């Protein structure tokens, strides 16, 4: 009974029709996934707005798991079934392909049944015929073997393995992507110019760790040495926002690079990409005698592409809340404009609230202060901050390798076409006549092979009739 069940399972998963059904299902699910808003792809506010506007659909889709379709059980299940199906099919395919790699001589009965087959009659001797045919086949790039009165010729043998390699590559890509995602870590780290943070779980603003990452943070120091809002590289090409990062281990610089769009920094399997950035005014709360109570760089963001950076913040432990907007009257730093050439003045608009009631609304220049009771809030400095998207995904290179191999296997499959020729020479010594049975076959595009085959036969016939080389 167990054997019977095993056989049934094997037949089910070997089915090529199953592959067709599963591929069709993946196509349909993918199309559905692009039509229904996916929670993982949208910003929370955008997703929530959609939910508010379409409450009924949202509830139905969420219940069915369609709002996280690409990580849902139905999607993973379909991919898993396709994976198993591919394993079974590849096993069969590979076995067949390996068997087909071993060539055999064929008799005239087999040759006559081929789509491209010819019988040539000649009065020439067997040895002369063999020599003539083999030399003609070799001229066309065939590898020729001969035994008694049989000839076998083949070329592009590697093509036999193309389909199997292609399917192995699909399995390899799925496994690599899985390996990468379960051991993956991605997070956003916010650094102000000059600031150093350790690569540790707690220093990420947002972090997502795969189940097999095991909190394996490397804890090296990451410093944002300098930020360029409009960077020009050595070739004077504009690169947009860029940040110079340096990574240190035990105080020693391990790597340093300028990170900008399409130029990420890699170190120890980690990649660093710059994404959003903003300005960070340093606000220090002082006593009347000038002693510092507290102070920090407040990271303000440009929410509407106006180059005005806004933030809300708590003012020390005073219980007061501040709202600020800061901008520069010129770019703070730029690769092609020397800082000294342009007057750069930071302007800070500040509002202070006491339990929701506005108690201050004014404009501050650098080093200006505003009095709050017996304390002073001083606008002491301004710097840029930048978020760095930090990723560790050990599967990426494997997936690339899989993609490369899949491209190679498709080339082998469709453009290195295995071609075979078989010949049997039948001599009738009494009649002093020899019959040559020639047949050929291409594994794909057989009708396109006809031309090559006919040309070969014409050459052979011509040489047999001329008796020349």
């Amino acid at each position, binding site marked *: 009974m167990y054997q019977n069940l095993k056989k049934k399972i094997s037949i089910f998963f070997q089915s*090529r*029709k199953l*592959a*067709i059904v599963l*591929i*069709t299902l*993946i*196509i349909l699910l*993918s*199309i559905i*996934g*692009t039509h229904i808003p*996916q929670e*993982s*792809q949208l910003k929370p506010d955008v997703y929530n707005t959609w939910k508010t506007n379409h409450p009924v659909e949202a509830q139905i889709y969420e219940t069915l798991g369609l709002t996280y379709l*690409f990580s849902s059980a139905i999607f993973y299940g379909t991919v898993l079934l396709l994976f198993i199906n591919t394993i079974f099919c590849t096993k069969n395919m590979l076995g067949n392909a390996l068997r087909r790699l071993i060539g055999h001589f064929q008799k005239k009965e087999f040759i006559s049944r081929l789509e491209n087959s010819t019988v040539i009659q000649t009065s020439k001797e067997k040895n002369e015929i063999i020599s003539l045919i083999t030399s003609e086949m070799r001229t066309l790039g065939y590898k020729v073997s001969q035994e008694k009165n049989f000839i076998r010729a083949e070329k592009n043998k590697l093509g036999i393995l193309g*389909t199997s390699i292609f399917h192995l590559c699909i399995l390899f890509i799925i496994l690599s*992507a899985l390996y990468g995602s379960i051991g993956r870590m*991605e997070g956003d780290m916010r650094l102000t110019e000059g600031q150093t943070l350790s690569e540790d779980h707690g220093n990420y603003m947002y972090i997502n760790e795969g189940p097999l990452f095991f909190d394996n943070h490397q804890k090296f120091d990451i410093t944002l040495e300098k930020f360029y809002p409009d960077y020009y590289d050595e070739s004077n*090409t*504009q*690169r*947009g926002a860029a940040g110079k990062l340096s990574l240190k281990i035990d105080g020693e610089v391990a790597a340093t690079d300028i990170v*900008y*769009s*399409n*130029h*990420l920094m890699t170190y120890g399997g980690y*990649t660093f*990409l710059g994404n959003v950035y903003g300005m960070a005014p340093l606000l220090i709360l002082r006593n009347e005698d000038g002693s510092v109570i507290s102070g920090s760089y407040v990271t303000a963001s440009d929410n509407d592409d106006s180059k005005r950076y806004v933030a809300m913040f708590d003012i020390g432990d005073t219980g007061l809340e501040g709202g600020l907007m800061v901008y520069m009257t010129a770019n703070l730093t730029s690769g092609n404009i020397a800082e000294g050439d342009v007057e750069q003045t930071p302007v800070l608009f500040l509002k202070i609230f006491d339990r929701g009631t506005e108690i201050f609304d004014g404009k501050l220049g650098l080093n200006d202060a505003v009095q709050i009771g017996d304390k002073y809030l001083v606008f002491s400095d301004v710097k840029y901050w930048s978020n760095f*998207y930090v*990723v560790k*995904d050990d599967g*990426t290179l494997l*997936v*690339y390798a899989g*993609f*490369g191999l*899949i*491209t190679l296997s*498709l*080339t082998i*499959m*469709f*453009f290195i076409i295995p071609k075979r020729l078989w010949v049997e020479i039948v001599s009738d010594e009494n009649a002093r006549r020899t019959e040559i049975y020639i047949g050929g076959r291409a594994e*794909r*595009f*057989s*009708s*396109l092979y006809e031309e090559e085959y006919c040309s070969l036969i014409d050459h052979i016939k011509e040489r047999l009739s001329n008796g020349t080389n």
Partner: protein
Amino acid sequence: MGQIDHILYLAATTLYGLSSIIYIYCFVFRKEERISYAYYGALAGLLFHSVSIALRWIESGHGPYVNMYEVLSKYAWFCVVIFLLAQQKYPKIKSAGFAVMPVTFLIMGFGMTYSRDVVMEPTSLHSYWLIAHVVFANLAFGSILVAVGIAALYILKDRRLNKKEKTDDDSFYDRLPTLNVMDDLMYRFVASGLLFLTIMITTGAIWANQTWGRYWGWDPTETWSLVTWFMYGLCLHLRMNAGWSGRRIAWFIIFSVIILAFSMFGIGYVYSGLHTDYLTS
């Protein structure tokens, strides 16, 4: 220079239009002997088109992939190049121009509805991977468009052969390749298309990883490119393993080009995403 490149673009569009008319005329009225006019029309159009693209490239300082006018122009250019090369290799399929050239003409015409203003290349597009990505996308589209043209010829010839009575049209159909050869040619061009789609997805994944930190993110454009890849994978699977060939596969190829065209041109109008926002804005 901006005016000259547009005048050349208009000249190319006109020549493609004329070439399309001649191809259709030759096909409808079975005048195969006149088809060389269509070929030379397309060739002349390609010459003007190439110079137009080159001038715009010099003027803008970036390749033709930043706005829709450039993108569509480039797609049309690749379609004509691939079709003319295919004709050189397989002269008997030249009648497929009745399907390929009108599509190319429409792409050019559609391109004219977009702004011709030279747009600065966004910094996210500064990548050699992007160039490879768009070139292979165009090669894939061109190859599959030629497969569609052959598929259309296949269906028409098959229909004619199934009719018992002989007509004057038969000589025209006799000059087309045999059904078996057309079947293999469709198969070959779809296989080339799948190979190019694979390279397009690979280079796109590498570019995405450099720009966004992940090689795959189920963005609508990415998902539709995967759908298209599976579609043509399925097409070849059906051809190789399920005995689908001839008429059935020809219809499959004709219908699946709608999915391909949507994934290459239509997504920006339906979805918003990382790939499409700058093109349709």
